[in-house]
């Protein structure tokens, strides 16, 4: 599991320092702290950023909103973001609200509030609300990553690294090259959200990343995966073989 990369856009050093401190304590990785709109854009496009925390007012101008509007223009490269503001001035809010999905945090805020706000922003951005706060689930799935709530903070896992997923009631065991861990998510939801071209169900309890398949032994109902992991292939899902490109 990797840390979440956060880009902070804040022109007041005292506030950004406090923010950096809180986030680092909770295992977030700060990409950089940008002080202007220009810097922010440069950092956003030159680094791998998972979430952006934006102060609305930069040097007295609502440049924070302009930034959000700019990154929203290209939907595929857009990321979740949280606005920070010290005023609930309605006019500013009316404008900020247009940058959907909209989440904000009033200054001053404490540790819990900022962590909560980040979670909310991720949920809203990937349109999977009520995940981190509920007791039944703890994972939001984007195209590239699984965002998993671990303790107070969020972690991410690159989906391409997943070898297979073993379902156990409402838990899912995620097995990657390096580690294995448990997430809370329903089977139907994970099947729905994962890319079906690379993830296939091979058994009632197995979802396999087809990229990681080393060998299929239909006679034994067995799939050998990279890292010598094994998964079961039940009769019901044997059609899978036709879909996989094999060397002849």
């Amino acid at each position, binding site marked *: 599991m990797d840390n979440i990369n956060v880009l902070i856009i804040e022109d007041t050093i005292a506030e950004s320092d406090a923010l950096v401190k809180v986030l680092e304590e909770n295992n977030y990785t700060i990409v950089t702290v940008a002080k202007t709109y220009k810097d922010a854009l440069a950092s956003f496009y030159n680094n791998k950023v998972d979430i952006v925390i934006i102060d609305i007012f930069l040097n007295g101008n609502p440049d924070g909103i302009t930034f959000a509007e700019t990154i929203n223009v290209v939907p595929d490269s857009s990321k979740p973001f949280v606005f920070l503001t010290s005023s*609930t*001035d*309605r006019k500013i*809010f009316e404008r900020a609200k247009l940058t959907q999905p909209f989440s904000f945090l*009033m200054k001053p805020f*404490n*540790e*819990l*509030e900022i962590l*909560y706000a980040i979670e909310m922003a991720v949920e809203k951005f990937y349109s999977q609300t009520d995940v981190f*706060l*509920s*007791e039944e689930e703890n994972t939001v799935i984007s195209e590239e990553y699984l965002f998993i709530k671990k303790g107070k903070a969020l972690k991410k896992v690159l989906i391409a690294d997943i070898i297979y997923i073993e379902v156990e009631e409402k838990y899912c065991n995620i097995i990657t090259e390096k580690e294995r861990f448990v997430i809370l998510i329903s089977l139907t939801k994970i099947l729905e959200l994962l890319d079906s071209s690379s993830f296939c169900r091979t058994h009632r309890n197995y979802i396999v990343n087809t990229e990681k398949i080393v060998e299929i032994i239909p006679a034994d109902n067995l799939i050998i995966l990279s890292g010598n992991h094994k998964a079961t292939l039940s009769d019901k899902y044997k059609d899978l073989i036709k879909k996989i490109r094999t060397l002849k």
Partner: protein
Amino acid sequence: MDILCFFYILILAKLLKKQDMKVEVKVMLVCLLFTFSNLLFSQQKISEAFFKKEIKERSSQFIDEANFNKAQLFFLKGKWDSTLIYSMKQLNAKTDIKELNDYCHFFRGFSFNKKKIFKEAQKEFENVSNDFAFHYHIKMILGGIALEQKKYRKAISYFDQIEQFDEKELLGIRKSNIEHNLGISYLPLKEYDKAEFYLVKSAKRQEADKDSLLIIGAYGDIANLYYEQYKDDLAIPYFEKAYEMSKRLKGLELKKIDVFDSKRKTARNMAVVEENRKNFKTSLTYRKESERWKDSLNNQTRIWEVAQVEKKFAVEKKQEEVSSLEKENKKKISERNRLFYFSIVLLGLLMTVGYFYREKIKANKTIRAQKETLDELNATKDKLFSIVSHDLRSSVNALKTSNTKLLDNLETRNLKVLDGLLQSNSAIVNGAYNLLDNLLHWALLQTKQSYFKIESIRLFFIVEQMAYNYKPLMLDKYITFENNVLKKDIVFADQESLKIILRNLLDNAIKFSIMNGFIKVYTQNTSENYCELVIEDSGLGMDEATRLELLKDTVLLSKKKNEDIIGTGLGLQLCKSIIKKNKGVFSIESELGKGTKMIVYLSKTLPNG
């Protein structure tokens, strides 16, 4: 000789008498004919209504023909010339309907007869076919014309043709009339038997009809009949009867002339009779009477004419009066209309004025009410100002003195005291900050400037986040804190305002708590629409009066009972306003010395609007 002479005279007288009588008979006959035509006329008048009705009904099938319709109308009105013109036009149109042509010829013949152009009348009647409904009338009229022309035989043949029919079939011709005419026709032919037969028959019918004038005429005719035959004994009673009857006649206005005429005739007949009887004296009186009636007849005629002129004049005058009255009426109507419109306009004006006046009064009322609320608000604001600035001033003052102490201790390096002082400073600043924060939100709420959006919120996390800030404070007082809100509790509220509410309620709970107390936050789901969020503390509590005071609207708690703890009341006031804005309800349960429960009812569903 004497005797011889006497006889001679007697014979002479007798001869004379005969000669005289012949003369008289001739006179009487003339008079009789006169009477006859007169009678014919009056009898026709009686049955005229019936006749006209019949004409109208029977010819109504042709009223689509404009000319015929006009001819018919003029005919019914008795305007003969016009009838002739239009019936001629209709005939010229050459329609092939036989009945229509019959009507036209009939109208023309009738009209010619009325105008006494008998030859033309006869010609027209000849053109009428025999099956025409009114051909009995034609016979009757032709008979009348023959009688007029003294062609008695011809007349009798006409009358005979129709005599045997019923009155119903005759369409308005009186049977008595026919019999009378027959009687009269036989008279000059000296066929007295037949004349007598018809005249008596006619007289009897007329007696039955009870028309005195006709009866008198009939008696006169019968008397003449007998007289002509020298049956004086029979004739004289009739003459007398006729005379007596006519004497008794009282002229009704319309028939005055007829009545006078009949009186004159009967009187003259009596005079002739008496003269023949050699009663010259009585004869003279009768004659005089006759003359008198003649005079009065003339008079009457003149009077009638004068009356006609007068009537015409009066009618003209009346017409003038009517037209002048009409003019006056028109003037009055136009005046009335003018007055009416004027009053409508006036009324409208009055109503608008009234309306605006009322609007003005209403506006004034609202303005006054607004002024009152504004004054009140202004007073509240001033009070708030003084309290807040007083609080801030004392806070800052405490900070000032504390800072001086801090500097002193820093010089002496008394680090232990330093720690305590910094702790207290932090507390003071915290309090001041909360006060300022509330003040800001209050101002924002009053001016409705802040962003406000009601959405679903998981209550547990918000409580956690808010309690996080107060952990050190609670630790200070050794207060145990429990957040027992369920993770699944969801309410609908604006997140920022919910935070303000929680901050204030927690702040209050800590403020009024004693050492080693507890604060519990939990929810009660007793109601379907509301989630009750309870913030319970084991603090000082409050009495009922304070509780009610706190729940009252827009009252700032300025009484300072506990000098160091009780604040401005601004926080609670703010809470109440915000809860209201979130469509929630606020209540307090408290027991003095035991603790307080602050309860916020938050909507479980998205409130409308």
